[in-house]
């Protein structure tokens, strides 16, 4: 008997916390984020109703059918009911996944435009590095033998390649707002995961693979990037940021970086 009230109480509290959004997603910063949230909400609505009704029914039968001396009904079931709830569940569950395919396809099946800003993302225990191709639009040659984190060369850029000399390497990701960005994710040691909550995006970085990921951020601001695949003892400290700048700020920043590079490379 008390069990029914406990079950109901938990059902009410859980539904309340989700409705009141006591803990929730950060606001989205692009169209994908808005679409994501809409789909999350419709899933929440459907599952929330099922969840609540199921717990309600469980509590109800617990109270209603406690032993009050009345004999139990002798029944082995009802095939019509079985067919009904089987098909209802099938339609609901498969419908949900088909509806969501659009959201997934927008991220992984649609191609980014040709003029998207390209950035390479490199994960290593326990830091992020980002590489921009520079004015020539080409990522220069790299060689793992040249990797030197202390000297600021986590990618192993080969300076004998002219295309490598203008590559900008940073430890946080800066992108202009409203511009498509195409990332290439790489790891040089173990698996890491690139996650930006505000973008509603998450993708593993797998050694031996170059995984493409594209997005466009529309709202300027600084957003945290937590590594989201266990990578070792410093996993919880593997942090960087995504800084969404206005296009003007971004251009200035890029120029400043290139200027710095030129000064460093002068003999």
């Amino acid at each position: 008997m008390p069990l029914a009230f406990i079950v109901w109480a938990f059902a009410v509290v859980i539904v309340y916390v989700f409705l009141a959004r006591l803990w929730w997603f950060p606001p989205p910063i692009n169209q994908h984020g808005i679409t994501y949230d809409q789909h999350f909400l419709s899933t929440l609505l459907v599952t929330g109703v099922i969840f609540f009704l199921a717990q309600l029914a469980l509590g109800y039968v617990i109270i209603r059918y406690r032993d009050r001396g009345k004999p139990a009904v002798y029944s082995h079931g009802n095939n019509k009911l079985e067919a009904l709830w089987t098909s209802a569940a099938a339609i609901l569950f498969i419908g949900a996944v088909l509806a969501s395919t659009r959201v997934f396809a927008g991220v992984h099946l649609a191609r980014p435009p040709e003029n998207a800003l390209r950035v390479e993302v490199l994960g290593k225990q326990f830091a992020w590095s980002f590489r921009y191709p520079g004015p020539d639009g080409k990522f220069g040659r790299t060689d793992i033998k040249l990797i030197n984190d202390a000297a600021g060369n986590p990618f192993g850029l080969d300076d004998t390649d002219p295309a490598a000399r203008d590559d900008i390497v940073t430890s946080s990701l800066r992108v202009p707002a409203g511009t498509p960005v195409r990332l290439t994710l790489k790891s040089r040691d173990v698996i890491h995961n690139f996650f930006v909550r505000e973008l509603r995006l998450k993708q593993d970085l797998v050694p031996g693979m170059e995984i493409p990921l594209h997005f466009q951020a529309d709202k300027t601001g600084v957003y945290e990037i937590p590594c989201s695949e266990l990578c070792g003892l410093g996993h919880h400290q593997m942090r960087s940021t995504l800084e969404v700048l206005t296009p003007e700020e971004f251009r200035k920043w890029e120029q400043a970086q290139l200027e710095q590079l030129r000064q460093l490379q002068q003999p």
Partner: protein
Amino acid sequence: MSSPVVHHAVHAAPKGFLRKYIFSTDHKVIGKQYYLLALFSVFVGMLLSVLMRFHMIYPDAKVSWFEKLWPTGAAGGIMTPELYLSLMTMHGTIMVFFVLTTAPQSGFGNYFLPLQIGAEDMAFPVINMLSFWTTFAALVVLLAAFFVPGGAPLSGWTAYPPLSAVGEIAGPGQGTGQTLWILSIALFCGASLMGAINFIATTIDLRAKGMTLMRMPLTCWAWFVTAILSLLGFAVLLAAGILLLLDRVAGTSFFLPAGLVVNDQILNHKGGSPLLWQHLFWFFGHPEVYIAILPGMGLTSTVLSVFARKPIFGYRAMVYAILAIGFLGFLVWGHHMFVSGMNPYTGIAFSVLTMTIGVPSAIKTFNWIGTLWGSRIRFTTPMLFALGFVSLFVTGGISGIFLGQPALDLYLHDTYFVVGHFHMIMGVAAIFGIFAGTYYWFPKMYGRMMNETLGKIHFYLTFIGVYAIFTPMHFVGVAGNPRRYADFKEFEFLGQLMPVHTFMTHAAFFTAAVQLIFLFNFFWSMKKGARAPVNPWEATTLEWTVPSPPPHDNFGGRLPEVYRGAYEYSVPGADKDYLMQNEPVGAAKTQE
């Protein structure tokens, strides 16, 4: 049946202590051994989780006995992140393999499968004994990882390479500790394969006269299908484990690609794929979820029917649902890999299959409610745990509908939402199944009743406790909290979630403490509980036709004959509200 005389299951009662209690071939002794191994393991696993929860909210706390236990991992009494990760790895491994796989299948299954189908023992008693002692060796090898230089591994129970494959340059514990982990899992796979063959052969060959497949209790169906899952799943995990071991010790590159630079060292590997491990691991890993939960589902069905005094609603639908879950369970492993870099089209295919498996799970839930509808419920402790199982199964299953969609997984993957989801369903729902089984079968196993008052207190406090621990995980998951973080100090957004973590940690302390009530009740009742009659719950299945505890050969040399299904309660016209499976026809008319 080609051979009318069954010789292979018969063996005389042993005399000496060693053959009777240690190296016994009696399925009942082996069942208890498995159960006690799982009981030991669950308390170790729980202790580790309490330490983890402590560290999450007090990462800088100085506790002198930490240093005594882990002189390097907690030098100065402060737990390091690597120690946290090794506790997490060991917690997951112990719970998944040595508790959730061991107790419901190898423990209860061993003890009650022969009794429920009317057999004198398992089909291969010696293999049964070997299987237990191999499991025991696997546990010893695993726990030994705590005591080797570098300590226990930190790559999680999933042991993804390259982290798990490149040795100690990837972190402390990744040397000897990780090697021991793989050896332990390989041993465990071998033990599970032996067990699986035994369960399958026993179910197919040793059913008593009249025990048709469609008269078997749903527990037997669950053990049977679970055994098939074990046979197919553990075989693949064993192969994967051997390949991983070769990558570590023999310089092969199954899972390691070219161009690895770990800890500033260039590694000489090429041609392997880290994703290959994930495919092999989850090909086992997802069926493993059902290995853990199916026996609990079978038991919940039985216990609900017994204490509702009503036949199971839709027995055939329940059988088909178990079979469907077993089959589909092998087609959904890719939903663990939506963000792994796998081809996105594959992700969509896996998600459709994943949602399909929700259908038989929903059928089971509907049928449980259907069983309770119009019933006459007796609120015993096993019944409370079975009802709790249904509630937790719904809660844990619902969040699966979010995670099964690759679109939503783009954010929720590897957050606490996932941790909450699988703990609800595979963790505590399965554990509630084990508790229900313990309170239900304890009288048969030990010949004494467990204390009902303590049992009920244990149930209510645990039920509240587990909801309090695992529900908030979904909330912080929605806020984006990544899992497997030793502490939450580095990130601004995680700092805001600390009050929730503090709450969960305290709920975990509370729930862990409550389990001492169970422990006390278990051992106290073993010695001091009221004597159990043959059939204390007025249940219909065959184990309740023999003395509590049953004699060595189960049925006293005369195998029972079965006349009806396993759930004949409240049959109109019968003189009592249950009909035993072996009660000759004529007592009352029943449906087939």
